């Protein structure tokens, strides 16, 4: 089992994802350079967080044109598991692998803090959520400027109808509240999947909470889930 972590110019959670994949999931991991076209036999692709291309113009807008992304898109279309975390989620929406868009946080500030997420689908709905049963509340850190999920109403209806909303922002008790939603995302959406359910994007960072030493290992569930 091998994780491929894509390195875009400006990625800064590439090492964190590599570390989480190898330590929390005990899997092999490798870096995939954005100018290359070789997925090096990876079984799972991670698009890590950071500021690809400085987040200039729009977060994730330029990264999607990297040569490696053509391969990632083909891999995803073949049904390969892909997860985009934070900036990686933004890249997934910009590249059309996931629907919608991520816009400026409602308070217009970069926000770094813990949030609570509620799993919205049955365990195993996606390869990454095999260990997360529906209704379970996870704690995870966020750190982003542009995490406000937006989609047109008809698209939102479809996402909800098809069970593509994976995680929602909630409070500690698992309820959807204004304060629990840190960035103003529509329907408090924190993470979604595609129709085929092999591609997952989420704004919070499972890579930053995959170890007891850091006070939280809820994030390890996602890395471990994808390893059979």
């Amino acid at each position: 089992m091998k994780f491929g972590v894509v390195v875009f110019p400006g990625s800064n959670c590439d090492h964190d994802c590599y570390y989480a994949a190898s330590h929390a999931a005990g899997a092999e991991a490798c870096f995939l350079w954005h100018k290359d076209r070789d997925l090096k036999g990876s079984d799972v692709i991670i698009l890590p967080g950071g500021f690809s291309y400085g987040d200039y113009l729009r977060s994730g807008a330029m990264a999607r044109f990297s040569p490696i992304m053509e391969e990632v898109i083909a891999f995803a279309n073949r049904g390969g598991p892909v997860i985009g975390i934070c900036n990686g989620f933004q890249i997934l929406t910009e590249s059309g692998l996931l629907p919608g868009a991520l816009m400026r946080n409602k308070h217009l500030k970069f926000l770094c803090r813990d949030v609570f997420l509620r799993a919205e689908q049955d365990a195993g709905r996606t390869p990454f959520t095999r260990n997360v049963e529906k209704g379970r509340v996870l704690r995870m850190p966020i750190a982003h400027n542009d995490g406000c999920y937006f989609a047109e109403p008809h698209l939102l209806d479809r996402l909800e109808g098809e069970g593509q909303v994976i995680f929602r922002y909630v409070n500690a008790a698992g309820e959807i509240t204004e304060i629990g939603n840190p960035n103003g995302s529509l329907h408090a959406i924190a993470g979604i999947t595609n129709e085929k359910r092999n591609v997952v994007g989420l704004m919070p960072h499972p890579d930053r909470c995959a170890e007891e030493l850091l006070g939280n290992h809820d994030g390890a569930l996602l890395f471990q889930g994808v390893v059979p």
Partner: protein
Amino acid sequence: MTNATREPEVTAAVAREMGVTEDEFRRICEFIGRTPNYTELGMFAVMWSEHCSYKSSRIHLKTFPTTGARVLKGPGENAGIVSIGDGLAVVFKMESHNHPSFIEPYQGAATGVGGIMRDIFTMGARPIANLNSLSFGAPDHPKTRYLLGGVVAGIGGYGNCMGVPTVGGELRFNPAYNGNILVNAMTVGLVPEEKIFLGQASGVGNPVMYVGSRTGRDGIHGATMASGEFDQQTEEKRPTVQVGDPFTEKLLLEACLEAMKGDHIVGIQDMGAAGLTCSTVEMADRGETGILLDLDRVPLREEGMVPYEMMLSESQERMLLVAQKGHEEALRQIFEKWDLQCAVVGEVTAGDRVVVTHQGQVVVDLPVNPLTSGAPLYDRPRAEPANLRELHDLDLASLDAGGSPADTLVKLLGSPNLCSRRWVWTQYDHHVQTNTVRGPGGDAAVVRIKGTRKALAVTSDVNPRLVALDPEEGAAQAVAEAARNVACVGAAPLAITDCLNFGNPEKPEIMWQFERAVAGIGRACRALGVPVISGNVSLYDETEAKGILPTPTVGLVGLIDDVAHVGRAGFQDEGDHVLLLGEATGSLAGSEWLHVLHGKLGGRIPKVDLEREKALGELLRQGFRDGTLKSAHDVSEGGLAVALAECCLLGSGSGASIKLDPIDRVDSLLFGEAPGRVIVTAAAGAKKLEKAAAKLGIPFRKLGKVGGDSLDWKGLFRLSVATLRDVHEGGLRAITGA
């Protein structure tokens, strides 16, 4: 010598415009045996500016203790380095970006952070933590909200994009900073000992290479601006502010670290203040070589730039390096891989001259030494400020309590200097790199070192009010507090860096403060066995003759041998004993109580017992190592009552019941301040701790027990933890509007 571009003729008046005094101008002419041309004069002006030459401060800085068993590099390099074992070393330094941040808060602060990080990775170290110490004017001053918002966003904007966690710092408000805010940024990096790089040229014939961003007309004369007192003309100097590009710096970081893996690089130095001039001259100086520079090969962003502009440009995100001859192509490939500029712009020469050519003609030909060690050295006159006696004589006894203890605690806990800084640090990514074991909010932050059991504790500290009342003592206490803060998470202090922010050194009172503060830092460092390995001086922090409070910021890095023994600040479990190490009663002199309730600064501050501080540190570390201690929190501004409230807020949510009767006035017990005090909690280990404290001569007192949902000080006040939280969290709202 000929000059291709027509430059203004050089006279003493032109020199004065560049900030070079008549006397200095004469010395320059003597040194080089002729009148310098305009570009050469510009180079002298920046190299001899206060910012680059330390001409007013150098003789005092020499008194710092700078050596120690662990010190690999002390002051004199881009940053200092200490060994932490396992073949690893820590690199750190603090730097000011005060004036630029006042003019353009976002970009000023951002480029300050960018600059200090370059100082760290130019030595081969990956930056692993950032801190920032910020001082703003009065909370209700019309510019404060704008400046605070811009500075915090700028620090976050740069550090977040770089992927370096900002884990700590300070924030204070005082009307003394109305016209001169302070933005001091510190970066800590990690480097394998055998991979340390120095800013040094060597090997005649080796190519000099330029990497990073192109050169534009940014911040020309920025370094001299940072050394000049503010006046009405500041507005006109505005274009000297640079725009930062953290994205390019992130690429530069990765490219440099990759290039450093091989044996391509002989020496490397960032281009910060005074850009190409400073990096060229300093590298030649350290390597005792000459350098030949061809400006036609410098990557430019704008057309028509003249040598003066190229030599003085402060465009960001650039580095100058000396490569091993024959490795140019290998380096070019690495920098191109990261989409960065890379050009051979000169070579190392025998001799001691910096020679610069442009369009085939020599435009600069200067001996290195006069530019560096030839800079003037001033022993400026010093005099104790006339009003100091008056400040000391403030009659504290006559001041009333100003309300019930509960009211006063609420007032203090929600006051601008003591309330929660969450609004600030939630704008900083403090988790990236997944090493942050203790983030912002406590006494010191802790980052673990992957691949080892070790962790580093980092903090920055100074209480400028104490320094104003007694510069020597106040500065010594800044060091003591920093050491105490890292001890509260179980770390032993390794070394400090400092950023000395003062007013106009040409005023004897300011120079007196400066010299006394340096002496105080030196004394404390010697007593605690903590060397000074790097630092920065920012003078002329003054607007229209109004100076700031003397602010010698101390940045300290401590080591924890086993990350399993990291301490925490907040109350943990019901029933734990709440204990005080150190004296029970503090002083109201220079206290937050005096500032908030009476708007005053005065009194005689209590002295720090450095021997006892050292013992206290040992006691705390031992307590965390053997599991006796469950928490430790420094008692600083706001005194015992505020510290206890913080213990409630930083922990599991438990309150505490406290019983301790005042000996004299209640305010001194609750809100008085003094060094050497820590609130700790322990369960069964309390007995053992008492014995250990007695052996070390540290006062030990039982205050009460953890428990309940309020902080209940018998007979004095009782406030629910929820109330304390509301007050503490809401304090900045009035300033930030959020």
